[in-house]
């Protein structure tokens, strides 16, 4: 029996038989790409030309002064095309799809970022594209739905279960098992059956490779700590891989929602509510009840609102290589507010979780130490969500007036 696809106790490929051959083909193409140096060259050239890579590592002078401790650097994944790190994974998988000769891509999306990125890639490469999105998320991320449709994708609202990310994943799998000959499922994060966790992490490792080089260029040495938010875990895996073998503390920040004791959160690795399980094709820590039924999760950030977490991160948690913390919804809003006012930078609600923990710890470190916050995405394109989270009165007036105008 092969143990391929496991990271310690976690991972594997718990897939229906109908997908067996498809996964074999995917594994083969992925192995070939990894062994072919020209693939990574093609990938980085594409990302440079289409997605503004390398993204800057921005020195946050005002925030550093404000906290009076470590020098704070921000890795700007928000400056990718489509506004988030999701582009890294999607363009990489797009190149694989070309190699496999498939003509259609499907994807799940929570916050809409991965759906947006996939629709973009499909438009560029000329693939047909269907995006599955929970009905709840369709409602909270309407602008992303608009853009996906404008780029030619079909967006299917998923009305089953909790009508969020996990249900969109199930529905995408159902499409895939029906159309596997011509279709590739562009999995959005470092979860799911092998080889997805490793493959997605590999594409995202471009973040950490750049950041490790940039921090040495700017700060003269490696950082003391690196912070990343953790939903499925792909942006965290991306940046952490640049520092795994170094004396750098890695900190993953999960969605604390209304607090770890409230039952309304999405903390799998730092809370006490998660337990080992197998769902959506892989083994990891899941938020589930004693019978193994998945629980509802909560976060102000749709992209972190998920029951499972990357099996690679579960393993790094076991090994104590990554420390996991959580940030509550209200702490997230405060950190976002401060970052906008002091730096003129607008992190996504997801990314703001990493900022929270970095802000809590920055002043404990000496001035000559550096920390890196991975800013996985930009917040300005989520204006409806953020304005709602800020409960902004003038924004509400505007929406009401615009609605009245449409009603006429």
């Amino acid at each position, binding site marked *: 029996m092969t143990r391929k696809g496991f990271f310690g106790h976690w991972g594997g490929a718990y897939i229906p038989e109908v997908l067996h051959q498809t996964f074999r083909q995917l594994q083969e193409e992925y192995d070939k790409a990894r062994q072919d140096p020209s693939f990574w060259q093609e990938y980085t050239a594409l990302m440079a030309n289409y997605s503004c890579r390398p993204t800057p590592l921005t020195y946050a002078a005002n925030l550093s002064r404000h906290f009076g401790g470590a020098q704070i650097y921000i890795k700007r994944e928000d400056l990718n095309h489509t506004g988030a790190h999701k582009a890294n994974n999607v363009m990489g998988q797009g190149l694989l799809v070309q190699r496999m000769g498939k003509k259609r891509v499907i994807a799940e999306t929570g916050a809409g970022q991965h759906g947006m990125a996939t629709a973009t890639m499909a438009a560029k490469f000329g693939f047909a594209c269907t995006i599955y999105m929970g009905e709840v998320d369709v409602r909270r991320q309407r602008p992303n739905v608009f853009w996906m449709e404008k780029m030619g994708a079909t967006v299917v609202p998923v009305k089953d279960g909790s009508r969020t990310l996990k249900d969109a994943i199930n529905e995408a799998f159902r499409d895939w098992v029906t159309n596997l000959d011509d279709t590739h499922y562009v999995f959005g994060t470092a979860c799911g059956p092998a080889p997805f966790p490793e493959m997605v992490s590999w594409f995202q490792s471009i973040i950490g490779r750049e950041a490790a080089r940039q921090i040495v260029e700017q700060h003269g040495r490696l950082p003391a700590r690196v912070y990343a938010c953790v939903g499925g875990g792909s942006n965290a895996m991306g940046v952490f891989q640049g520092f795994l073998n170094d004396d750098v503390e890695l900190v993953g920040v999960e969605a604390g929602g209304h607090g770890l004791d409230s039952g309304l959160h999405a903390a799998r690795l730092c809370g006490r509510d998660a337990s080992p399980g197998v769902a959506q094709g892989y083994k990891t820590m899941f938020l589930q009840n004693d019978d*193994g039924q998945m629980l509802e999760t909560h976060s102000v950030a749709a992209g972190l609102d998920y029951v499972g977490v990357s099996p690679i991160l579960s393993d790094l948690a076991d090994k104590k290589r990554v420390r996991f913390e959580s940030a509550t919804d209200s702490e997230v809003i405060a950190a976002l507010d401060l970052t906008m006012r002091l730096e003129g930078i607008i992190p996504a609600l997801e990314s703001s979780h990493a900022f929270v923990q970095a802000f809590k710890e920055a002043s404990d470190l000496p001035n000559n130490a550096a920390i890196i916050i991975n800013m996985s995405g930009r917040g300005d394109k989520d204006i409806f969500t953020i304005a709602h989270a800020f409960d902004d009165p003038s924004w509400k007036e505007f929406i009401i007036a615009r609605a009245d105008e449409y009603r006429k």
Partner: protein
Amino acid sequence: MQLEETLKKRRKEKDILLMTHLVLGYPSFEVNRRIIRQMVDNGVDCIEMQIPFSEPMADGPVILKANQDSLAAGTTVAACLEFGREMAASYDIPFLFMTYYNIVFKYGEERFLEAAKAAGITGLIIPDLPPEMGGEFMTMARDREIAPILIIAPTSTDERMAELNGWADGFIYCAARRGVTGKKSEFGSEFYEYLARCRRATSLPLAVGFGIQNRDDVAALIGRADMAVIGSRTIRLVDEEGPEAVGPFIASLR
């Protein structure tokens, strides 16, 4: 061996066997009881009882909704095990559990097998547990005379079919087509060639499921397979016409 022998014995008396499926606790255990009585009274040879799971990845909309509604009504794994025991004690046909691996994993593999054994269950279908992940568990099941039932798909190569057969017991479940449960399957020469490949790969009884809906579908399998599996069709029937419609429907199939 127990399940395989039972099915082969029954098969000597009939051209084709019938296996039916239901989701436990949907719409209620009480209705499950009435449905099972009608199934048995009308000659069903084997019944697959699905323990609901919140993420039934391989199921289509009908069974998916049944899973969700059952869980929303408060169905627990313990209640399913107890119901299975009651049915197996009441009727003289094989009863199987179908569920997803997390239900077994969370209950504890060994503890689940012991409970199933004690309940008189003779086989298990777990669509998201391929032998690469569940080889040890399959051996543990066989040791307790609970047959691990493996699924073959049209995408399985001959080599893969042989490998799956090496792990399987009881019977082989051939998925009639790609996709999830509950959609109509088209039977053509490609399908018959696939069944012939399955037949060559195993000496175990062959069951065919996914999209079997009427007498013609069942008749098409005679001489090509040993058992027809009726899944979503009965759930839809109960939704639309009530549990009393199940008996006449089953009787109409052969």
